[in-house]
Each structure stands twice: as structure tokens, then as C-alpha cells.
């Protein structure tokens, strides 16, 4: 064994270590600043471009041939209704699936396959979901149940189809968020509940669900804020780009030719457009003045998304404080 080595001077070692520390510190900081700067420039540009159209009129006008009169009324309403359908389908299904996989399912090859595929599904490109929806909800259901836009059967190019499509798209996100929230609950809490004589469902309802609610809600809101910006799958299923009417309000009279009133769910089968599609439509117009509208609708979309994410953060903060172990 060679014995002619010396312990290096600690001061030297420390100095060289510190140099690398400083290097990465500066590098990381500048990269963060750079990316934030680019983002701010983009958003600032959008605000500047859209500023002249932003206002109450922009929100309450239907789209129009005249750029200075055009507004996002129909697409804003369309976005809200599609999100309602998405939330009402994806959240209950996703939470139920997450609870089943975490609390009920035995671990075997079948549930392992399901778990792997849920992770995979979250990564499927959104256009594929659009194609799937086109094939399933529109063509196949039409072939099975009748004509599209029939009040009773076919789903058609409707709010319902769009909501279900986006619901499927974000379902894996809700499932994964639910499972993670449930897994954060210590096993000792479950054992305490079972030891008192609780059934699985009693344990889920009185302990697991309440304690994981903040995580589930946060995940659901994040999922919805992803769905709200999706354009490709809705174009695939044939969302219209120009809509100058709103879906029928329940119990208002139908046109003379049909008579009677609209049912409580008639709006589901209405044609629709959504904000990102409206924006895409305006961007692709040759008339440059429509670009202003596109920027302004971008600001509206961004405001909705940020509001949703902010509410997710507030909810998480509020509910986390309530449950600690």
C-alpha cells in the first residue's frame, strides 16, 4: 500500500467546493430569471395587443364580421358549459376509480395493468382523444342510436360530446391525484378506524375522503384547467368556429316550428364553440384587426385558468391546515 499521501489542506478543498456552489447558484438563478422574463414578455405582449378590445362589450358580444364589434359571448358560455359537463363526469368517475384502486382493489396482475395504463393514458396526445371521441361518441353512437343532433339519442357535435371527450382526457389526472392524496393518509389512521369496527365504506366516507379532500380538489381543478385550454380534440369532433347563438335555456319556448319548451338538459345537445377555438379562428383570419380580438380572448382564457389555479392553491392551504397528523 502506498503510504506517501497527505490529507489535502481542508481550506483548499472547501474553496473549490464553494466555487462550484457559487457557479450553480448563479447559473440556476439566471436560468429562472430568463424563463420568467420570456414568459412575462409573451404575456405582456398579449395584454398590450388585446388591451384595446378588453372590456365588458367584448364579453357580452357574439362574434361578428366586424372585428371591433366581435366578442366572446358564445365561446365563453360554451367553455363554461363544456367545463361543467367535464367536471360532472371526470371528477366523480376519477375519484371513484382512485378510491377503488387504493382502498378496495387487491394487488394482482389485473390491477397492476390498470395502474400502468392509467399512467400511460395521462400521456396520450389530446388529438388521439379527439379521434376516439369522433369515432365513438359521434359515428358509432349515431350508427347505434339514430341521427346526430336528435334530441334523444345521437350525441353529435354537441356540448355533451365535447364535455365527455375532455372528461376522458383529464380522467387519468383526477385518478392519479386522488390516489396520491389517499396514499398520503397514514395507514395507522385506517387501522384505527377498522379496529373500531368500521367497514371499508365507513372508513372511506368518514376518514379517507375527508382527509384527502384537499388533494382531490386540487388535482381536479388542475385537471379542469388543463381541459379548458384544449383545442385539438374539440376541433376533431367538429366544434363550430362561428356561433351567434347561445345553447337553449331550460324551459324557454322552442321555435314556432317545433313548439313546446326546451327540456332541462336540451342545452347538452346544442352546438357550441369554446374560447381556444374562437381564438384560433381569429388568429387565422387574414384581417389583422382580428389579431387584437385573439389576444384579448387569450387574456380572458388566461384569467380563467389563473383564477382556477389560485382557487386550487387556496383550497389546498385551507384544508391542509385542518387535517394534520
Amino acid at each position: 500500500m502506498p503510504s506517501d499521501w497527505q490529507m489535502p489542506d481542508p481550506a483548499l478543498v472547501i474553496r473549490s467546493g464553494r466555487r462550484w456552489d457559487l457557479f450553480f447558484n448563479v447559473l440556476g438563478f439566471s436560468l429562472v430569471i430568463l424563463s420568467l422574463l420570456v414568459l412575462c414578455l409573451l404575456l405582456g405582449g398579449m395584454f398590450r395587443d388585446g388591451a384595446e378590445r378588453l372590456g365588458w362589450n367584448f364579453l357580452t358580444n357574439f362574434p361578428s364580421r366586424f372585428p371591433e364589434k366581435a366578442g366572446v359571448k358564445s365561446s365563453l358560455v360554451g367553455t363554461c358549459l363544456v367545463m361543467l359537463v367535464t367536471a360532472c363526469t371526470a371528477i366523480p368517475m376519477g375519484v371513484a376509480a382512485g378510491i377503488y384502486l387504493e382502498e378496495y382493489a387487491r394487488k394482482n396482475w389485473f390491477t397492476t395493468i390498470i395502474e400502468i395504463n392509467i399512467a400511460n393514458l395521462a400521456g396520450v396526445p389530446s388529438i388521439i382523444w379527439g379521434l376516439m371521441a369522433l369515432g365513438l361518441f359521434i359515428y358509432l353512437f349515431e350508427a347505434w342510436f339514430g341521427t346526430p343532433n336528435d334530441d334523444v339519442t345521437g350525441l353529435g357535435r354537441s356540448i355533451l360530446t365535447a364535455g365527455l371527450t375532455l372528461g376522458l382526457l383529464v380522467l387519468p389526472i383526477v385518478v392519479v391525484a386522488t390516489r396520491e392524496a389517499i396514499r398520503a393518509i397514514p395507514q395507522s389512521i385506517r387501522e384505527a378506524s377498522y379496529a373500531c369496527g368500521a367497514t371499508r365504506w365507513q372508513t372511506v366516507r368518514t376518514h379517507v375522503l375527508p382527509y384527502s379532500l384537499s388533494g382531490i380538489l386540487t388535482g381536479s381543478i388542475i385537471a379542469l384547467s388543463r381541459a379548458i385550454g384544449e383545442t385539438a380534440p374539440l376541433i376533431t369532433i367538429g366544434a363550430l368556429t362561428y356561433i351567434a347563438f347561445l345553447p337553449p335555456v331550460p324551459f324557454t319556448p322552442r321555435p314556432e316550428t317545433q313548439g313546446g319548451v326546451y327540456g332541462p338538459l336540451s342545452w347538452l345537445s346544442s352546438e357550441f364553440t369554446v374560447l381556444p377555438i374562437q381564438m384560433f379562428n381569429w388568429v387565422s383570419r387574414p384581417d389583422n384587426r382580428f389579431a387584437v380580438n385573439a389576444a384579448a380572448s387569450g387574456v380572458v382564457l388566461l384569467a380563467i385558468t389563473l383564477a382556477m389555479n389560485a382557487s386550487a392553491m387556496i383550497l389546498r392551504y385551507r384544508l391542509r391546515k385542518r387535517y394534520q397528523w
Partner: protein
Amino acid sequence: MFQIASQPAPTMIEDTTRTSSPPEAAPTAVLAPLKAESKDLNFFYGTHQALKNINIPVHENKITALIGPSGCGKSTFLRCFNRMHDLYPGNRYVGRIDLHPDGINLVDPRIDPIAVRMRISMVFQKPNPFPKSIYENVAFGLRLRGINTRSILDEEVELALRGASLWDEAKDRLHKPATALSGGQQQRLCIARSLASKPEIILFDEPTSALDPIATGRIEELMREIVPRVTILVVTHNMQQAARVSDFTAFMYLGELVEFGPTPRVFQKPQKDLTNQYITGRFG
């Protein structure tokens, strides 16, 4: 000092080491009827056999302590009594644990584990109150049994908290979170939660291993206070604890029962060399 020259009824004290032992028992141990009894109980985690032919009687309104080194199967044995192992797949019981007086076999797969847990409650190693109010923690077992009448719940919660000598500390903060209590108070709350549903047996799984000596003393005192109303089975790492609180002691090693008997006899005149080595601290 605990030996008396009386002749204990042979069916009352099931001494598994009775070979060549003279009749002897602690005075408290005499004439205690059986509450439960494990008969040739084997337990498997998958293919691993964790318990081998365990025969231990549990005497009514007595404290039975299970001692032994880590991994000897004492907690596994305890958790058979409320079918806790049923929560996880791949576990298998072979043999019987008879619950008296009705004589049902607790580990029979045809017996609903929920029905077992309604009669036999448990206090865990680490205090595990629900992140709810003190009141709701204690009321949980009653609510599970369909009792939602405010006046009954109020009364029973107070009774259980008094029983766990937590009432004076908790009465002004019943609707505050249980997690704000200290560790020892949390463990007493867990005991109150167990008591509230009026169980026949309470299983204690190393109830004081996460507590300081003063809190430990209070829990031990509490166990002695409640034992006239309930049968207690306690797993402990701490031999002094077993000697202090229990009426009967079972010493387990590597999944087998080595020795069972009245606590003073097991500690003062162990009949197996292994027991003697363990209680004198030569291994474990």
C-alpha cells in the same frame, strides 16, 4: 411471596408448562374464568409461518402480557384477536381462538371480522387519534353502531373520557382537534375511544413504547383501573412493565410459546431456561 399452597382448579389456569410443576399461582390468578383461548393457532404471512401452535388462555378481567424479543410473533398473535391481518392479502390462520362464553372461533373465515372488532377493540403502539375533534374520536365507535342521539353520545363520551382519566384535561376542549393533545394524552384518548364502545377485550400493542416514563406510568395505572370491567391483552417490549401490570405472562420466541403462567411465577421461577435468560436480560 406470591405463592400459596392452595390447589387451583386445573381447568381455570391452563399452564402450558405444567410438566413437573408444583401447583402454584398468584392469589389474583385463582378462579379467573377464561375469556378467550387460542388453540393450536398457526399464522402465515404468505408462505412464512409467523406463529406455530400457540396455546394461550386469556383470563377474564385479568391482564395477560405477551413478552419476547422483536420478531417473536407477539404482535402478530395479538392482531389475530381482532382479525387485523384480514386487512392485508395473503394472510392465513390455522387453528382456533375461542371467545367465551359463546365459544365462537374468532379466526374462522365464516366469522365476520367486523363483528369480531365490534367486541374486541385495540390500542396501538403509536397514538393514532383521528384528525378530528376529541369528542368525535371518542364517539366514532358509537356512531358506527348507529348511535347518533346527542344526549347519549354526550354521556358516553364523558364516561369514556373519565374512564381513561382524560376528562379533566379534555372537558374544556372537547371540540378542539385531538391532534393538539400531547402524546400521552393522545394515547389515553385512544383508550377512551376503545372503551366507549364497551368492548369485551382490549388489545394493547406496545401502548407505551412511544411515551415518556410519566405518561407510561399513567397508562399502566389506567390499565389496572379498567381491568375490572374488561379483559386486557398487552404486548410489551418492556419486561418491567409486564411484571408491574400483568396477572399472566406469556413468553414467546421465534413464533412459539415458550412459557405461560401467572406473572410472579414466570418472573421469579421461570421453568424454561430460555425464559430465564430473557428475563434476566441475557438476550433480547
